[in-house]
């Protein structure tokens, strides 16, 4: 203000007054080794709003009785800086109370990608107005989640549920036994499959290297979770034996350029199976943690 160089620009402050909670979960030893995380659920207990406060709110701001609750994963980097990633968000009503569930599977996936020793899982829960703007209500001020009470209070503490599958039962078995044929019902494995490029007509005179390569293929079947679990995870399709990791195939080919023919290297992505796994359609593909 009062600067000779800048023309003053006045603005209106639209506050979204968010109350924010930081939840800390010690995660070491929580996820069994050699297991696949299918779902992680954060449960928060929304406390009932006292009648008097509800009545007062109803009189003051009858427009809306909802608030937006957003869960973010908080990552404290080695240099001390913070970053958050949006994980889940939903509306809650001030007229309701009880357990509210948030899907935080992605947050746990991110946490699993951290280098060891890993920090606890930090979840930032913020309660905001349903939407911004002069007509927005202030119902969010009435939303309270039970936080961790004194030891032993027990009632309503935030809970993190981790649903995993034991890969010793529901996973693949690595490489197939080259000696044993893959029979019906054999467990998912990676089988050698050689591709002979010299046997392909189009490759003649064009592909100089390699003469052929081991591409591998995923064969066999995967054990399906038993019924109660399937109905608990309706979003998951049947588990299938798929190539979960692949690698590229470099080649040397002949290239004609400017009337001359020369050798050139080219790399074909995803040409060889590196690893076979049992995976379900519908399972979220974990986002890679950016550095």
């Amino acid at each position, binding site marked *: 203000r009062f600067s000779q160089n800048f023309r003053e620009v006045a603005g209106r402050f639209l506050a979204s007054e968010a109350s924010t909670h930081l939840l800390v979960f010690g995660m070491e030893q929580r996820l069994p080794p050699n297991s696949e995380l299918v779902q992680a659920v954060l449960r928060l207990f929304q406390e009932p709003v006292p009648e008097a406060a509800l009545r007062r709110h109803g009189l003051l701001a009858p427009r809306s009785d909802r608030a937006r609750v957003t869960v973010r994963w908080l990552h404290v980097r080695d240099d001390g800086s913070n970053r958050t990633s949006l994980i889940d968000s939903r509306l809650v009503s001030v007229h309701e109370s009880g357990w509210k569930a948030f899907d935080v599977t992605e947050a746990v996936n991110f946490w699993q990608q951290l280098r060891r020793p890993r920090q606890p899982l930090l979840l930032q829960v913020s309660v905001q107005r349903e939407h911004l703007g002069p007509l927005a209500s202030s119902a969010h001020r009435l939303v309270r989640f039970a936080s961790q009470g004194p030891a032993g209070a027990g009632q309503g503490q935030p809970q993190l549920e981790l649903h995993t599958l034991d890969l010793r039962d529901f996973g693949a078995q690595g490489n197939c036994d080259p000696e044993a044929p893959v029979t019906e019902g054999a467990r998912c494995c990676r089988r050698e499959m050689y591709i002979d490029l010299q046997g392909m007509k189009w490759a003649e*005179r*064009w592909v100089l290297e390699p003469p052929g390569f081991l591409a591998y293929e995923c064969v066999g079947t995967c054990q399906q979770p038993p019924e109660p679990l399937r109905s608990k995870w309706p979003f998951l399709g049947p588990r299938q034996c798929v190539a979960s990791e692949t*690698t*590229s195939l470099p080649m040397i*080919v002949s290239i*004609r350029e400017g009337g001359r*023919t020369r050798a050139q290297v*080219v790399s074909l992505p995803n040409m060889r199976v*590196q690893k076979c796994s049992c995976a379900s359609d519908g399972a979220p593909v974990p986002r890679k943690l950016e550095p």
Partner: protein
Amino acid sequence: MTEEQILGSLLQQLRLSEVPVLDEGEAESVVTPAHVRAQYVALLQRSHGTRSRGK
């Protein structure tokens, strides 16, 4: 992995719409210089490299 997939991927990487027709003389005249072979071997090792870490 089918023959069509390999051919499709190679054409895509080289931004070609069809397989180049090379006569026998052209094909035989091509010599792979050392630096191209070195590049090929390095890529090959890198694509195998992750596997060795798995052993």
